């Protein structure tokens, strides 16, 4: 497994009050994304364990776009990746933010 780590400035903080959210499943072409509200408000850290080696540049591009477009501040994001495509990764990250921003029941 290849391990990658990113710590980025995130201009917008994730809304809501949930402490954590999880989306996705670790399967071929899929990934799970765990979001924990444990980072400073304008920081997003993303730790990735991936079965597919050598795609660091692509992960970086996806992750930077995510942090620029979505409310990712304050989040520690941990990913277990089963070889998902970049668009699936972007989708899960967005789904994760939406879930953690959901109003608690």
């Amino acid at each position, binding site marked *: *497994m290849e391990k990658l780590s990113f710590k980025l400035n995130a201009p917008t903080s994730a809304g809501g009050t949930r402490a*954590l959210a*999880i989306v996705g*499943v670790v399967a071929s072409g*899929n990934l799970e994304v765990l979001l924990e509200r444990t980072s400073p408000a304008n920081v997003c850290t993303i730790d990735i364990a991936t079965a597919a080696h050598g795609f660091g540049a692509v992960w970086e591009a996806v992750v930077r776009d995510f942090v620029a477009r979505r409310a990712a501040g304050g989040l520690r994001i941990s990913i277990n990746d*089963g070889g998902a495509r970049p668009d699936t990764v972007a989708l899960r990250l967005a789904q994760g933010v939406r879930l953690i921003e959901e109003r608690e*029941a």
Partner: protein
Amino acid sequence: MTAATANRSSLSWYEASARQRLEALVDAGSFNEFIGPELREMSPHLSIFDLPEQFDDGIVIGRGRLDGQPVLVAAQEGRFMGGAFGEVHGAKLTGLLRAARRLKQDVLILFDTGGVRLQEANAGELAIAEIMRAVIEARRPGVRVIGLIGGRAGCYGGGSLIAGTCSTLIVSEQGRISVSGPEVIETNKGIEEFDSRDRAFVWRTMGGKHRYLLGGADIFVDDEASAFRHAAIQALKSKGRCDLGLLEAEQQRLERRLQRFGEASDAVGIWQAIGVDNSEEIPGLPTREFLRRAADKREHAHDAR
């Protein structure tokens, strides 16, 4: 003509993830997870094989309420390693069942498993044995252990053995219950005996409708989360019993079943034998008609669970 609209309220059990099933099953907002993903209790073995891990090791456990009643729940994620049992995965379920006995709370197990992980074979097999023991030890003082089967991986191998110890089994048409899988049977017994690519045949042999007709499953439902929930609520109304008499009755049930149907080469023959009209139509029937035809013909558990 059928109207086609976006299905917002319905949730296919078959398609849903373990977490989605749990959310739909228990009373809204009542679910509390034990040993959640943030605790990162993952498999200690998969990294040796350079395989990806999942934070919950493929099983979600916790407690919730079912129609107001407190229950313990476990849901396997069939898409992670085929829902197969490993050391941590198994230990979570063992622990839950031991808690069930201590707390005298009923358990719902949402099966979706191909059996034991090859990579954790010894730990997995041990876990199966421990879980079966834990089920019986919970059931002895009257706890109900209810199995729900309808996912993509089915309920195979050690999972099916555990299912065999449950007090009630709820199954959908898509669900399959068997110890050996189709490919294994074909490899060992030959394609004439079992053609694993003949999926209609696979479902006739192992699928939910057959299991229900044969008395191997107790409640048959649509592939719908709300149907599983409704059935689970019904299942909790029956009394839980687990004593020597029950086990002896189960032994007799199985012996009689083998005696009566052991020679049949296809399930259709068994359905005919128990008196189902036009039994070749069974696989194609919608749920309501299937239940109607099965009603007074299907084999029952006869207090053997």
